[in-house]
């Protein structure tokens, strides 16, 4: 595939971006055809971090395979684990205790915040502003510390298990989360002052990477990428799980369809996540944090599919069981994979510098795409 690189007969320039390009935040390899500075075609080459997780899971038990899924979307590892645990619970018809449900939602929303914070800092860095990156990482560190205390890990949590959560919350969890909320409420306004209203930033975002509602649906876009085009696709609202039907929050949509619309959706989502955490943090029910389950889990013969909303969109777990202790076939529907397929459509006709902004607002995590 590398012999394609160079100048074509019609004078177009074919170049590599990645697999070690800083703006891809991972090992994404794009082959771009350029006419001058205008993008004519973007072709992703995947597989640099393909581990065949689906094949690995076929030889892991229903307790073991959840640990591997932390390594897919490493910024949403709680939510990945949660989706897998929900699928196993669906198969075994386990009722999760109320305390575990609330803990799960709290952890999911903290994860969403941490993920969006990192996205915000990295996007600003990609388009040339270095300072926001340090602001974002300062606030993200607080969440990481909260996670570390309770889960013992900062990135690959492996905290959600079939039946509930692995261990109870750390005694200082509530207090630390409350401190974080107060701190971040003022900081998120600072984020807006620093970046959102910035004219240079807006010029880089507005009108760039447009995708219409119909195209976004057809390309299978989900999450903030689709909501920026006005699609109401939040799984937390469409098919509520755990306690999402008992908390008040809004599904954020924008109709712009461009990079700035996707940016605004994520910024508003952070405020909604804060509000969800605020509603739940003082209302964690007492009781068990884990349902009683058998030591060896055996799913009945059949097919089970669970859907969950990660920070990037709809994450699906499809388990085909033959009745044994390991899945016969498992498929992970990762949000990044479908969102990436729309990249060529969004980037065509724009300048090469805009590609970085478009990729930034898609919020790609490469291990999630390659699996």
């Amino acid at each position, binding site marked *: *595939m590398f012999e394609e690189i160079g100048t074509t007969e019609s004078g177009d320039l074919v170049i590599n971006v990645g697999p070690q390009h800083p703006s891809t935040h991972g090992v994404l390899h794009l082959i771009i055809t350029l006419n001058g500075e205008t993008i004519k075609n973007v072709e992703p080459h*995947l*597989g640099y971090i*393909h581990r*065949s997780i*689906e*094949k690995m899971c076929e*030889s*892991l038990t229903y307790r073991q395979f959840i640990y591997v899924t932390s390594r897919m979307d490493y910024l949403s590892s709680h939510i990945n684990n949660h989706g897998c645990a929900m699928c196993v619970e*669906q198969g075994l018809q386990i009722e999760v205790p109320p305390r575990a449900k609330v803990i799960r939602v709290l952890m999911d929303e903290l994860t969403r915040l941490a993920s969006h914070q990192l996205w915000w800092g990295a996007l600003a860095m990609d388009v040339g502003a270095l300072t926001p990156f340090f602001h974002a990482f300062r606030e993200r560190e607080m969440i990481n510390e909260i996670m570390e205390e309770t889960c013992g890990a900062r990135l690959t949590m492996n905290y959600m298990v079939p039946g509930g959560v692995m261990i109870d919350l750390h005694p200082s969890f509530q207090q630390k989360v409350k401190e974080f909320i107060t701190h971040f409420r003022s900081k998120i306004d600072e984020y807006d002052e620093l970046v959102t209203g910035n004219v240079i930033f807006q010029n880089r975002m507005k009108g760039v990477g447009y995708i219409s509602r*119909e*195209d976004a*649906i*057809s*390309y*299978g876009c*989900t999450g903030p990428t689709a909501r920026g085009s006005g*699609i*109401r*696709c939040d799984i937390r609202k*469409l098919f509520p799980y755990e306690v999402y039907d008992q908390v008040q929050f809004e599904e954020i949509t924008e109709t712009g369809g461009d990079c700035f619309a996707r940016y605004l959706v994520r910024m508003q989502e952070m405020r909604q996540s804060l509000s969800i955490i605020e509603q739940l943090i003082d209302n964690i029910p007492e009781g068990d944090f884990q349902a009683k389950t058998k030591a060896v889990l055996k799913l009945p013969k*059949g*097919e*089970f*599919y669970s859907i969950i909303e990660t920070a990037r969109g*709809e994450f*699906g777990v*499809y388990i*085909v069981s033959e009745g044994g202790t390991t899945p*016969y*076939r498992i*498929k992970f*529907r990762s949000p990044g*994979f*479908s969102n*990436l*397929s*729309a990249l060529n*459509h969004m980037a065509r006709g724009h300048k090469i510098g805009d590609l970085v902004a478009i990729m930034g607002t898609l919020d790609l995590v490469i291990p999630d795409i*390659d699996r």
Partner: protein
Amino acid sequence: MSPEELKNKVANLLAPGQTGDAAPVPADAAPSPLPWEEGAQWPALMIDPTQWLTVARQLRSTPSLAFDFLFCLTCIDWKTHFTMVYHLRSTTHHHTLVIKAKLDRADPVIASVTPIWHTAEFHEREVYDLFGVQFEGHPDLRRLFLTDEWIGYPLRKDYEDPVNMIKL
């Protein structure tokens, strides 16, 4: 729409012979009930793979069904045959339908639905890469994750790779 209403709507849409029934249906006979899967999470229907493109177009374009969102496309190796699984949802009606098609393991071929749902382009390339299913009419059917020189299809159950695979 309840699952039963959805099933009826789909049944009215599909002409006899498009489903996985092996026996030919006489023209004057009452339409036989569709082979819906029992106890499934969502209505799941087995169809004849040669009819898939026609069925897909109808499911996409009928306003009362409007399955415009293909959210999952995958394949299962049952050792005797392959089963393609398509998960469809409507963004207007929010109902879900699962379509399955049995493929011959020696020569797995099915029509590509990339013209109907653009997301299928990458998903079908993935299934081609890992299962070796041929998608007729796909604009650019190449390996997606593995290198072009890779031999074999890793997600098939009989795949052996002494170097990269560790048996547990």
